[in-house]
């Protein structure tokens, strides 16, 4: 029986939503094809996460446990994924397309001799693995296929919905032996500098309030933060807003930054450059607030307000508070 394997990154003590989205799609494919559904977790205490995978209908969980896996560093992650890959011998391994996954995908493909389909928005398995890839700053979709097996595919957040299986499973748990000598490391992590980010993680957010260059000062930033808080939203930013020093770089949305597809995306003072749109055009509903009626963001907005954000945001906050108080 062939195996479909899903890599499950964990964050804040649980599997990431993006990973569960990929796992849900892989489960549907495994059921259809009569394949085994496997998952893998790399973490110093990887056993802790098995419980959270049971509702997702996993048949087998591979664990790699080592203190070096507490923080991301490519050499150990690569070695751990290689060890899981060799143990599971999957026909296909799917991974959520995070920055950490992008850091190792090419190297892992080269190491295990697999084809790689990076950052896809849909994939399927037939005689070959086929996938849809947004290219040209997400202005075009490329239909791609593999000519060799096995295959690694990384999937954009929001491409599929995360849903538990009809009935939970009691998976086999396989601990993959992993010896890693940190003395062999030729790239070492000195420190991780985290900016003060919002309360909600971008890739997990149903609502995102994104700030652009139009948000030009601390007062504007506070308006954006207040709106995000009121809506339980994550904060995102354009490259220009980050360059202005108002928001940390980990919040950048776009071709260079993160790709998001929330239910609601509120673009505040963002012009809508194609490199920004590349990261958010998959949002279900887009609201644009911009004082320039010709800003390109209005071409993709579901609802647009032409106006000064410093005037609109306080009114919007007030209206949302009023509605909340009513219900």
């Amino acid at each position: 029986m062939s195996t479909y394997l899903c890599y499950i990154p964990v964050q804040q003590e649980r599997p990431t939503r993006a990973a569960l989205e990929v796992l849900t799609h892989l489960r549907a494919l495994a059921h259809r094809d009569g394949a085994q559904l496997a998952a893998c977790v790399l973490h110093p205490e990887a056993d802790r996460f098995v419980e959270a995978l049971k509702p997702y209908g996993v048949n087998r969980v591979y664990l790699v446990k080592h203190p070096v896996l507490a923080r991301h560093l490519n050499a150990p992650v690569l070695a751990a994924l290689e060890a899981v890959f060799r143990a599971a011998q999957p026909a296909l391994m799917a991974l959520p397309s995070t920055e950490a996954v992008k850091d190792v995908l090419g190297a892992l493909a080269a190491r295990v001799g697999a084809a790689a389909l990076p950052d896809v928005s849909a994939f399927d398995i037939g005689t070959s693995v086929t996938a849809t890839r947004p290219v040209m700053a997400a202005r075009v979709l490329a239909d791609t296929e593999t000519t060799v097996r096995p295959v690694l595919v990384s999937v954009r957040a929001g491409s599929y919905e995360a849903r538990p299986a009809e009935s939970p499973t009691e998976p086999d748990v396989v601990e993959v032996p992993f010896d890693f000598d940190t003395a062999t490391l030729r790239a070492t992590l000195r420190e991780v500098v985290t900016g003060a980010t919002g309360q909600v993680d971008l890739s997990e957010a149903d609502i995102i309030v994104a700030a652009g260059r139009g948000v030009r000062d601390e007062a504007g930033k506070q308006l954006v933060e207040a709106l995000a808080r009121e809506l339980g939203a994550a904060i995102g930013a354009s490259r220009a807003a980050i360059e202005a020093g108002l928001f940390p770089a980990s919040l950048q949305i776009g071709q260079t930054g993160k790709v998001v597809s929330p239910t609601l995306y509120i673009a505040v003072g963002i012009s809508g450059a194609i490199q920004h749109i590349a990261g958010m055009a998959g949002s279900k509903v887009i609201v644009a607030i911009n004082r320039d009626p010709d800003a390109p963001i209005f071409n993709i907005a579901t609802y647009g307000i032409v106006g000064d954000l410093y005037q609109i945001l306080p009114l919007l906050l007030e209206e949302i508070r009023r509605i909340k108080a009513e219900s």
Partner: protein
Amino acid sequence: MKLCVCIKQVPDIQAPFRIVDGRLQFDVERHVLNAYDASAVEGALQLVEQHGGTVEVVAIGPASVSETIRKALAMGAERAYHIEADPSGWDSATVATVLAAFFRDRSYDAIFTGKQAQDTDAGLTGTMLAERLGLPYVSNAVGLAYEDGRLIVTRQGDAGREIIELTLPGLVTISNDMNDPRIPSIRGIMQARRKPVEQLTLSDLGLSDDALRPQTRVTGYRPVPPRAPGRKLEGEPAEVVRELVRLLREEARVL
């Protein structure tokens, strides 16, 4: 410090194009240096300006790639290698195979690539190349410094900036968020004409057709399905805001 930057020529992603029978057709063929690679050249130049050394560049592509090579030389790279080939139909793995063959008998302190190509956004070539060459690497670099024979690389990770010490030789994939690439000066453009560009063929690198077989291929291009047309709300700000919230609740049902 001896650095080599891998540069790719890409179609201008802003240029108008059509999709005909699943193929991309540009109204005008406009090619540019991949923006991420321009930042990689800039990052390399800044390092050697501070610490001494040389920057070379390598590009794989047809004859038309020479334009892009001149751009990198005009920015300040000293020497270029042009591996003449038709990469249409190749994938990142093929490109990495060719680059690995190129680097095998050459020695550099560090190899830079872009973190991704602007047209494909694949972002695989750099780390594939590092793996083929057995080099330690850092991807998605937004900062570079040189200290005691090592590169101190700042990389943008999922939740924050990771400061990584990279022993050399090593490989770094560069983000355009690292810097704003310099615009070549007239003097730079003049000098570039006299800088050496060494032409290489795939057989010079000992590569057979078999080694170049891609592992993935594009079967066709499609337009992105258009979004449903939206609407602009106009009028007195307080009313417009009230209408927006009503629409978000009653029509879109997202609040």
